[in-house]
């Protein structure tokens, strides 16, 4: 049964159905409805909702709750995600699984509250200190966002990694019909063998991101890198839309990709063969597939709600095989289909 839902609410309900019973958060526009939804819903499912005193506290509450081996999450928007970077680095070092939702808004600084994609670097390149990675998923519809929540938790536990769902204020705020995913039975989740639960009848467990001996810390880091390698080998996700006969491939993710799908059809009506390549995992980025298809097209156009952040990964993937162009607007301004079409026509000429 499809339900008409707001993006933030669909994500929240899908997270609960995916087995999340611990939510910590702090109000920030444009995602406060997610926090409010959890406040109302968690008590109904015997879950925990806690409004923290700051995003700095939120991420550390998440750290503590994640130590117990349960499914935990938070949601925030850009300035709040910045405040969480310290704790994200600690959680990555302690190999704790958790899911973060970043509903991006215009920046830098206080910026504004309109949709943006300008936290791409922060999410995919590591906004905190140290050599760490987090899996970054970028759904482009509410249905995809709802579907991806279960996968986000599964990936977090499979690899003991943090997963960020990177969406923008548009996906957070829009309403559309959503078929909610099936309920997972939390009774069936196995307690991980690293979880801190009290050392009754077993050896005490320690969870830290810490070793003062550089050779020991190096070993920990090499373990993280081995995990990241496995993820890049096994978890790359992308969508290809009408690329088989395309002369121009547009690379876009999230809301921007959704707009580009409309543009692809308009351009084709005007005789320009355009396709869309949509990374779903922003980290690990689909470099290899992009490299394969780059050889068959005349141009690649990256379109973002930023001044060119994913563009750097696109260039790494294309690796000089063809021409890479860019069109983007940021600061909360969303490029219109007409503008993107115009950018495509300019290249096609």
């Amino acid at each position, binding site marked *: 049964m499809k339900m008409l839902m707001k993006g933030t609410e669909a994500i929240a309900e899908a997270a609960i159905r995916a087995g999340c019973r611990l939510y910590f958060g702090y109000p920030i526009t444009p995602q406060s409805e997610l926090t409010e939804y959890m406040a109302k819903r968690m008590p109904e499912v015997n879950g925990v909702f806690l409004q923290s005193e700051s995003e700095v506290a939120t991420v550390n*509450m998440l750290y503590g*709750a994640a130590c117990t081996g349960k499914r935990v999450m938070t949601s925030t928007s850009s300035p709040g995600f910045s405040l969480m970077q310290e704790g994200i680095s600690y959680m990555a070092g302690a190999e704790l699984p958790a899911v973060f939702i970043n509903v991006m808004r215009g920046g830098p600084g206080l910026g504004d509250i309109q949709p943006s994609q300008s936290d791409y670097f922060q999410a995919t390149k590591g906004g905190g200190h140290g050599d760490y990675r987090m899996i970054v998923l970028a759904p482009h519809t509410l249905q995809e966002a709802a579907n991806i929540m279960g996968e986000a938790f599964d990936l977090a536990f499979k690899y003991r990694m943090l997963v960020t769902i990177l969406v923008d204020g548009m996906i957070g705020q829009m309403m559309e019909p959503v078929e909610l995913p099936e309920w997972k039975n939390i009774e069936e989740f196995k307690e991980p063998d690293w979880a*801190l639960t*009290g050392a009754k009848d077993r050896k005490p467990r*320690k969870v830290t991101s810490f070793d003062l001996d550089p050779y020991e810390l190096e070993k920990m880091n090499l373990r993280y890198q081995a995990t990241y390698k496995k993820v890049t080998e096994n978890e790359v996700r992308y969508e290809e839309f009408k690329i088989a006969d395309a002369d121009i491939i547009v690379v876009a993710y999230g809301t921007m990709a959704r707009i580009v799908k409309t543009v692809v059809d308009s351009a084709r009506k005007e005789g320009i063969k355009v396709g869309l390549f949509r990374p779903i995992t922003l980290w690990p980025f689909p470099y290899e597939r992009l490299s394969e298809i780059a050889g068959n097209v005349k141009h690649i156009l990256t379109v973002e709600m930023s001044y060119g952040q994913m563009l750097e990964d696109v260039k790494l993937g294309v690796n000089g095989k063809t021409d890479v162009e860019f069109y983007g607007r940021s600061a909360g301004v969303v490029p219109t289909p007409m503008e993107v079409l115009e950018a495509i026509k300019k290249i096609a000429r």
Partner: protein
Amino acid sequence: MATVDKIVAQMPKSLSKIEFSYCPGCHHGIVHRLIAEVIDELGIAGRTLMVAPVGCSVFAYNFFDLDGTVAAHGRAPAVATGMKRALPDRIVFTYQGDGDLASIGTAEIVHAANRGENITTIFINNAVYGMTGGQMAPTTLLGQKTTTSPYGREPKANGYPIRMSEMLSTLDGAAYIERTMVTTPQNVIKTKAAIKKAFQAQIKGLGFSMVEVLSTCPTNWGMTPIEAMKWLEENMTKTFPLGVFVDRTKGMI
């Protein structure tokens, strides 16, 4: 072979066999032992989680034979909150120094106390940053010389020593807050009793509990352990008077 009739003193079971990394004359070791004794006596080792801080006691998670982690600087109360909310029937405590709790972590400790978070905090106040080499702490006494107040702490530039126990005791969520010291056997016994009460408050679900222990740092104070103990008693207790600041445990434990 001699037989043992009665054991009058032994290493607490809740301490690990790992050697402490503390300087001679430092009080961390005494307080660690007291916590471990209390956990043993209450029989809660199998259901206790500890959160170590950043500072000299950063290794504390390894000194106890308990499940444990080490939090980011100042964030231990938030980490403990997450643990306690996830596992409400476990006992969760933080161990924090004055730089950690009274400077970088003021927001986290104030709000954990204000929520009446059912956790216990052991707060070591030695009026100085130990691990980083003796810099001024928020609890540094007026006139006290440190590496970042080389002419003595001066209130116009650096403000005043912050009294956390008094501050936190104004909050309705605080169940039990006491300040003690461990300079004499009598004071050690009093401190142990305070720590026990703090854990009992948590076991009974009464809310936030904290024991602030005034402690020495002979290395960074530039004193012998004996001189440091004397300096603590003569100077620190004037700014940080000992006592119970809030006690909502009466009739409950």
